[in-house]
């Protein structure tokens, strides 16, 4: 069973067709990169996949289930996780609060109105473990808006990863990171188990081709090329439109 199947997905914004009959499938455990010039529809695609926007037509299947009409928060429960291109964190809350919110969704009755949050020891323990893994435990009481940009990007990834979602949508995760940080990110992803299926949007071609097993090229909302990285690189249309400008 494929992790993700997209069938003829289209999205119109008024008169503008942002996505035009996009179709592809992703095997479980696969790493798929989505590339294309600005405005090609990449983020729109993620918006549709994560449920933040509804498609104008077409269908989406995740793990065999039709999720086209499913609400965003239900998709998360199904196993879809997402990072955001523009850092989307809980700015006025502390690092620890941020991670707790990510972790809280696992296993406690969410509508408990009276029991103080500090009593959920196992959650705190899990948050501590995660933060320690990333070396951010000593920053736990810092309000996120006081973190450096790199730290914020890191937290962005931490939040998504701490939820154990199996289908990850990573939207420009290395945006703004230094070359070393980006390298660190790449090796981290390469170490991920095959339990995770990853869709990646990234402007950095090095990062993209180090991680991707398959590549889709979007152009004006349409699939221009779809296949193994080498094939795509050699595709003359792709070279013309996109890569020629890069190198």
């Amino acid at each position, binding site marked *: 069973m494929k992790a993700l199947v997209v069938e003829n997905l289209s999205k119109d914004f008024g008169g503008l067709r942002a996505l035009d009959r996009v179709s592809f499938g992703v095997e479980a455990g696969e790493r798929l990169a989505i590339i294309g010039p600005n405005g090609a529809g990449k983020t729109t695609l993620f918006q549709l996949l994560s*449920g933040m926007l509804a498609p104008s037509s077409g269908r989406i299947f995740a793990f065999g289930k039709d999720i086209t009409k499913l609400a*965003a*928060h239900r998709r998360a429960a199904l196993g879809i996780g997402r990072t955001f291109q523009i850092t989307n964190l809980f700015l006025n809350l502390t690092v620890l609060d941020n991670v707790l*919110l*990510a972790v809280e969704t696992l296993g406690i009755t*969410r509508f408990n109105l009276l029991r103080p949050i500090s009593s*959920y020891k196992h959650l*705190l323990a899990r948050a501590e473990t995660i933060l320690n893994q990333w070396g951010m435990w000593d920053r736990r009481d810092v309000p996120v808006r006081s973190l450096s940009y790199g730290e914020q990007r890191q937290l962005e990834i931490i939040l998504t990863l701490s939820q154990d979602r199996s289908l990850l949508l990573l939207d420009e995760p290395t945006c703004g990171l230094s070359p070393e940080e980006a390298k660190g990110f790449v090796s981290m992803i390469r170490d991920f188990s095959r339990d995770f299926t990853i869709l990646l949007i990234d402007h950095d071609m090095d990062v993209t081709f180090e991680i991707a097993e398959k590549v889709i090229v979007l152009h004006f909302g349409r699939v221009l090329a779809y296949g193994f990285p080498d094939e795509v690189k050699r595709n003359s249309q792709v070279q013309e439109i996109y890569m020629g400008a890069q190198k």
Partner: protein
Amino acid sequence: MKRQVPYVGIAILLAILSALPIFLPSYYTGLFILMLIFAIFAMSLDILQGYTGLPSLGHAAFFGTSAYAVAILNVKLYQECNFGVELIVGVLSAAIVASLLGLVVLRSKGIYLLMILMASSMMLWGIAFKWRSLTGGDDGIPGISRPDFDLIGLDLGSTTHYYYFVLLFFVISAVLMYLVVHSSFGHTLLGIRESETRMRSLGYNVWLHKYIAFIVSAIFAGLAGVLIAYYNCFVSPSELHLVTSAEGLIMVILGGAGTLFGPAIGASIIILIKNFVSGYTEHWMIILGALYMLTVMFAPQGVYRLFKELSQKWRPI
């Protein structure tokens, strides 16, 4: 995450509050009653506004509805006080208004939400104003009788006894609201306030959380409404008016949105000033208006936070 509850401070505060009526003339005790009632009102609004990030200029809708419910039962139906029923119906009516309103209104955001809630509460005001047969129109409903607790030796007709009655409810509400705000539910509300999209992508049913927060805050506002009905022994459309909602909002902002106890302090300050000023001049509205403007200009983070900052400067740890 260890929250240090200043038990000593709270104990002292409670002691002072309990001792007040002994030292003060009953006029001032009455003032404190108002402060406590509006503290509950302001704190309930803070849950919505400060913690969930849902701005509301219509909070009076819950306050007034429950006050009217009590009045109608007390005066028109029973012709005497049936406390248990009136309390429950009062609070329940506020909750029902919230549950109906919430269905329609919570899909809107920011400015829209603010204005829609304002319009909604003014609509209720309009209904109260026009429906003379039920609500007495702008004459209101006078003659509400306070609960009869003669059996336990309480004469709620006396201001002092009524003060303790209100104080009890204040303490209960404050404790409950504190728990709610520090629960996992409350924590979720903070997340929603900061970033709804993030919360949705993390798997939270944001709408449902907002809905519940809406109803919870309405319940406490309704409680305040019940208490004000018994205190004034009279209910009028002004309990539903924009002015009341706006006052609530100012109390929250002045006190400090998102701090829960800040708004309680804000409520006290506003009540004191209102009373003080209206004793001196007919044009207290101008003063109040100027006060609102000054608050926004100079103390938008609220008195409570200001206080905390200052106290931290004096005790560097």
